[in-house]
């Protein structure tokens, strides 16, 4: 893999925020919470396939960050440390055996006013109904495939694709080598490719 310039954890501004929090600056924690809670909720929701439980898990992740403030030692970027906690919480949740049923829908939530919150589908043209339906079907199928692949493959793929992490960062989250991450992402992608074969063939590939 490409040799990149290795920065120290202390170069990460979010690590600096965590260190400020360690000295009692709660506002620094608020900034981290505000910045990362959407990503952690998104990660947990796709990992577990349940939106409601994902929010509880995300809150437990930040509770743990709060509790561990005094013991925190910067050994990696803050985001990789955070997602390591999030991944462990998600894996523990899966081990409880409550998520054997493939995947509940991540359909829009109904808010307290009874209105549906729209899904954040990317850049679809509202005039093209068929394309929207196709995109929705693809998203549902991807979610089901993701739910079937082993947890570490799922984590590697999601962090790499959805959170934009490098293989090195994913390796830090999973506590494995970059080579292992390369293999995990490859195998998860192969599963997706197989599961979406008909859609891919529709596009004359």
């Amino acid at each position, binding site marked *: 893999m490409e040799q990149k310039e290795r920065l120290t954890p202390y170069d990460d501004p979010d690590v600096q925020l965590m260190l400020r929090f360690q000295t009692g600056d709660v506002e620094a924690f*608020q900034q981290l919470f505000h910045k990362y809670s959407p990503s952690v909720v998104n990660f947990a929701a796709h990992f577990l396939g349940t939106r409601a439980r994902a929010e509880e898990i995300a809150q437990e992740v930040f509770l743990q960050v709060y509790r561990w403030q005094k013991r925190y030692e910067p050994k990696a970027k803050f985001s990789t440390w955070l997602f390591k906690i999030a991944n462990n919480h998600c894996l523990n949740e899966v081990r409880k055996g409550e998520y054997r049923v493939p995947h509940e829908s991540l359909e829009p939530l109904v808010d307290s006013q009874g209105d549906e919150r729209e899904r954040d589908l990317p850049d679809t043209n509202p005039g093209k109904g068929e394309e929207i339906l196709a995109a929705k079907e693809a998203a549902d199928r991807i979610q089901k495939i993701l739910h079937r692949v082993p947890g570490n493959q799922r984590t590697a793929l999601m962090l790499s694709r959805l959170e934009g992490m490098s293989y090195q960062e994913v390796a830090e989250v999973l506590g494995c080598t*970059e080579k292992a991450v390369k293999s995990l992402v*490859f195998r998860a992608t192969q599963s997706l490719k197989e599961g979406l074969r008909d859609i891919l063939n529709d596009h004359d590939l």
Partner: protein
Amino acid sequence: MTCETIRKELVAYRDGELLERDRAQIAAHLSTCAACAREEARLVRVSQLLTTLERVTPSPDFAATFWRRLEQEGQVERDSWFARWWREWLTGWQLMPALAGAASLLVFLSYVLSNRPPTTTTPSASPSALLKINVPAPVAEKPGLFVNYGIIADLDKLAHFDEVAALENAPQDASTLARTEDLPPALVENPNLFVHYPILEKMEQLQNFEAVLDLPAGEDEQRRG
């Protein structure tokens, strides 16, 4: 490299995770092998389909629920309800409903208080001592924006209303105006929030605030850590 080897590297190739030497080899192979090029196109399509996954966002009460859980666990040191509200305000997705509610409350209480009988109670602290605050320029220019601190205090401790209500007519001191960089970023981005800022500032910095709240001795020191 064989086609089989190339295909095992294609995902990492697409992810930009290969050494330059390997990347160049694969690029050269793809330019001459139609089958591997089709495989690469499939991987590109898989990546595109992954972007159709919904980005799940936290529900509106996510932040508030989190801080409640934290308090229930006793993780948060006991601090004022103002500090808690301010924290949730900073992190909250519930900002707009909260502001709407506060605005309604202020309108209602302004009406009620404007009909209060005159009082003879003497303030417990001098106005100059009470005014050691940073006042945003837009607020200073339009004193009408100074929503009566007493309204808020009234909510918490009605019996002591008159001690703080004197602030309402206190003179402004231009030297105490805040600089933009001293203000919370959210406030700078949304100047409409200025109407609430002086309330928050006063509650944070008002010297006799704790006295108004009648905190038990010692708890104030504990709160300040």
